[in-house]
C-alpha cells in the first residue's frame, strides 16, 4: 500500500486518470495489490497487538513438530509453537523491512541519481565514483559494521539494509536522466523558463519512474532474504522473535522429514515476492507517460 501511495506522488498532477483506475485494468497487478494490501493489514494489526490467532507466537506446547491440522493450521515447530502464529508475527518484520528498505533505496537513490544525472559533468563523475566505492564494499561487511555500531534490533537491521541497497537505484536514475535530459520536451521546458526543480520533478522523474519502480520491487524480496542472513550471524533478531526469513532458514533443514516448516514460510515469501513483481509490472505501465500520451492522442 505504501509504495502505491508514495510512488505516484510526483506525477499525480499531470495524470488524466488516477493510477488506481489504471491499475484496476491490469488484473494481475490488481490482484497483487490486494494481496500485498492484505498482508500489510495483517502485519499492521499484528504490530498493534491485535491477536489474530489462537496462539501466541512464543507459546510452546508438548505438541512438537505436528503436521497441519484443524488445531494448528500450519503445524508446529520443534518447540511445539504454532507455525501460523509465527508466520503472522513474522509478517510484520518482513514487510516492514521490505518496504522500508525500498523506501530508503528510493529516496536516497533517486535524489543522488537525479542530482548526478541532471548536473552532469565533473559533479556527475565525482558522484558516480562515490557510488562505485559504495558498491565495491561487500554488503555483508557494511551490514555487520552498522549492526555492531547500532546494536542489535530491528532499527539496526532497517538502517543497515537501506544503506546497502540505494546504489543500484542511483545508477539507474542517473542513466535515465542522462538519456532524457537532451530530449526535445526538456528543451521545450527549458525554453519556457521552468526552474531546474520543476524540470527534474515534473518532467524528468515521471518519465524515469517506470524502471525505478520495477527495480524497487526487486529490492523488497532481496531485503526480506538479507534479513535472515543477518539474523543467522547474530546481528538480526533475537529469538524467540522471528521473521519469514528466519523461519525459512530454520525450516529448510527439516525439508525431508517435516516439510511444513519450510513450505509455509516459503509460500508466503513466494506469494509476496510474486505480488510485488506483478505490481511492479502493472505500475510501470500505469505510470509510463509515453503510454499515457499515446492513449491521449487516440
Amino acid at each position, binding site marked *: 500500500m505504501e509504495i502505491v501511495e508514495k510512488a505516484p506522488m510526483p506525477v499525480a498532477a499531470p495524470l488524466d486518470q488516477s493510477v488506481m483506475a489504471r491499475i484496476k485494468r491490469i488484473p494481475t497487478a490488481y490482484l497483487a495489490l490486494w494481496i500485498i494490501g492484505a498482508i500489510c493489514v495483517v502485519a499492521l494489526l499484528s504490530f498493534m497487538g491485535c491477536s489474530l490467532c489462537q496462539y501466541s507466537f512464543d507459546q510452546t506446547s508438548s505438541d512438537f513438530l505436528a503436521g497441519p491440522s484443524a488445531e494448528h493450521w500450519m503445524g508446529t515447530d520443534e518447540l511445539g509453537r504454532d507455525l501460523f502464529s509465527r508466520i503472522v508475527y513474522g509478517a510484520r518484520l518482513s514487510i516492514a523491512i521490505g518496504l522500508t528498505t525500498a523506501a530508503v533505496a528510493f529516496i536516497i537513490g533517486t535524489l543522488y541519481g537525479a542530482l548526478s544525472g541532471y548536473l552532469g559533468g565533473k559533479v556527475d563523475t565525482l558522484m558516480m565514483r562515490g557510488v562505485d566505492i559504495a558498491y565495491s564494499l561487500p554488503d555483508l561487511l557494511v551490514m555487520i559494521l552498522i549492526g555492531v555500531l547500532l546494536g542489535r534490533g530491528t532499527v539496526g537491521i532497517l538502517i543497515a539494509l537501506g544503506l546497502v541497497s540505494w546504489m543500484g537505484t542511483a545508477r539507474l536514475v542517473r542513466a535515465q536522466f542522462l538519456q532524457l535530459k537532451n530530449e526535445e520536451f526538456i528543451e521545450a521546458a527549458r525554453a519556457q523558463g521552468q526552474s531546474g526543480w520543476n524540470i527534474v520533478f515534473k518532467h524528468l522523474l515521471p518519465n524515469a519512474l517506470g524502471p525505478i519502480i520495477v527495480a524497487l520491487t526487486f529490492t523488497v524480496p532481496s531485503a526480506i532474504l538479507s534479513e535472515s542472513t543477518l539474523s543467522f550471524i*547474530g546481528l538480526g533478531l533475537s529469538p*524467540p522473535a522471528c521473521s519469514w526469513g528466519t523461519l525459512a532458514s*530454520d525450516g529448510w533443514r527439516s525439508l525431508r522429514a517435516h516439510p511444513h516448516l519450510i513450505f509455509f514460510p516459503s509460500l508466503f515469501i513466494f506469494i509476496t515476492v510474486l505480488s510485488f513483481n506483478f505490481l511492479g*509490472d502493472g505500475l510501470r505501465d500505469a505510470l509510463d507517460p509515453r503510454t499515457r500520451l499515446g492513449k491521449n492522442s487516440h
Partner: protein
Amino acid sequence: MRIIGDDRYLISAFAKRLGHCFLAMLLLISVLSLSACSRPRSRFETGVLRVNLGTEPPGLDWHTATDSTSFDVVSNLMVGLTQYTNKLTCAPSCAKSWEILDGGRRYVFHLRDDLRWTDGKPVTAYDFEYAWKRLLNPVTAAQYAFFLYDVVNAREYNTGKLKSADTLGIKAVDDHTFEVRLRKPAAYFIYLTAFCVSFPMRKDVVENWGDRWTEPEHFVTNGPFKLTKWQHEYKMELAANESYFDRVPQVKLIKMFMVPEASTAFALYENDELDFIDNRSFATPDVERYRNSPEYKNFPLLRANYLAFNVTKKPFTDVRIRKAVAMAIDRSIFPRILRRGERPATSWIPPALPGYSPDSGTKFDPAAARALLAEAGYPGGKGLPKAELLYPNRDDVRLTVEATQDQLKRNLGMEIELVNQEWKVYLATVRKDAPPMFRNSWGADFPDPETFMNLFTKDCGNNDTKWSDPRYDALIEAAQGELNAAKRADLYRQADVMLCREAVPIVPTFLATQNIMIKPWVTGIAINPLDLQFFKDVVVSDTEANQREIR
C-alpha cells in the same frame, strides 16, 4: 478502452512467470528424487571403508590439534604407551608393562621391542621423551600442554618460569624404558598415556620438514594405519600399516571424505557412497526415519552440556537467583526437542564415572524456585533486569536455549535475551568477558571425573564463570592425589554437590549422545563414550556371518 500492447505484454509476462515457476518446481522435484535414483551397481568394495570426516582436519600434528576431527584421524594413525579397551580401561600398547612406584609419584614404562615406525625405524623411549618435551615447550604453544602439568616441573617449564627442559620429570632410561616422575600422585595419570597428545614423535622428521611434516610424503607414524593420500578439502586415504606390531587391520583402505553439509552426507550414505556416518552427517529428522533400522545405533557420550553464569554480573551475583534458575528448568525437555536420545543431567559428574550421584544437583521444582526468587527480592520476577544469554549459532543449541528461555519466563517470570555468535567469536567473548549467562559444553578427555571437575578450579584456564572457592579447590586437589577409589569418589561427590547445589555457578542440562549408522557389510567399528573412533578391527565384506552379526 485498452491498448493492445498492454494485453500482449501481460500475457507474455505471465507466461514467463509461469515458466519460471515450472522450472523451479522441476529443479525441486529432481533434487528430492536424487536419493531414489542412480544407485551404483556395486554397493561396496571389500576391504575399503568409506567414512565422512565432515571438515578438513585443521592439522594432524597432535601437539597443536585441539579438535575432534584431527583426533579422529590421529587415533587411527598412532598408538601411545597404552590404549583404551572397549570398556575404557587402559590396556598395554607400546608399553608392554608399567610399574607405579614411590606411592604413585613415579611411573616406569617398559616398551615392546618390536615397535616400528612406518619408515622401518624402531620406536624408542627417546621418541616419547622428545614428544613430551615438545608438548611442554612454550615454543610449541600447545593448548593441551596442561595435560602433563602433573609431571615434575612441567607447569614451570611450560609457563616460561623454567628455561631448561632438563629438570622435567621425563626421561628415557634406555631404548625400551621410559620414566615419568609426578609432583604428586595422580590417580588418573595412566589415562593420559592413551590420549593423542601423549603419543611419541620423531624428532628428525619434525625438525626436517617443519610445518609440512604431517603431509603424506613426509609423515611417519606407528599405528594400525598410515596416511597415503591427503587431497585437501576433499579426501584422506589411510592404508593398513603392514609393519604394525599388533594385528594388521583387515580393512585395506579407509577413505575419509570431507563433506560439510549434513544432508549431502546423509544422501551419500543412502546411496551407498559412504559406509559409516555419525552425528556430523545427518540432521535429526533423518535419524528419526531410521530409528528402527538395524543400521542405526545410539551411544551415550561423556559430553555434558551446561548453562553457566558469570557470577560477577548482576543479577547472578546472588546465589539464590542462580539456584532458582537451576530449579526452574525442566531438563526432560531437552531429549524431547533434540530427539537424539540425550540424557537429562542433574549432576556435573555424569553417570558411569566415580562420584556420580543423581542427587548432587537440584531437582525441577518451580514453586521452590519462585520462593527463592521472591526471597532474593524479585517476587514473580518483577524488577529483574533482562539478562543476556550467549550461545554459539548452531541449530540444536538454538533450540535448547529457546526452550530454556521459555521455561524461565513461564516458571520464574524471568526475561532472557538470547544472543548468538559464531563459534570462534563466542569462545573469545566467553573467555574475555563472559555475559551474565552462556551455554557451553564439555567433552571428557579421559574417563575420570577429574576431566570434568578440574574445569571449575580457580587456576583452570577454561573456568569462565569467574567463580572460585578455596574449599572446592581443596577438595579437587585432595581427590587428585587420593589413591583409595572409594574415598576419591566421595571427595568428587562432595565437590559436585558444592557445584550443583550450593554455589551453582553452572546448571548441568543434558548429556549428549553419538548416533551412528553402519551399513550391514561393515563390522568392528569401535565407538566409545569419549567419542574416539577406532577402525583397526573393521571388516568390510559381504559374508553371511557378517550379516548375521549386524542383525
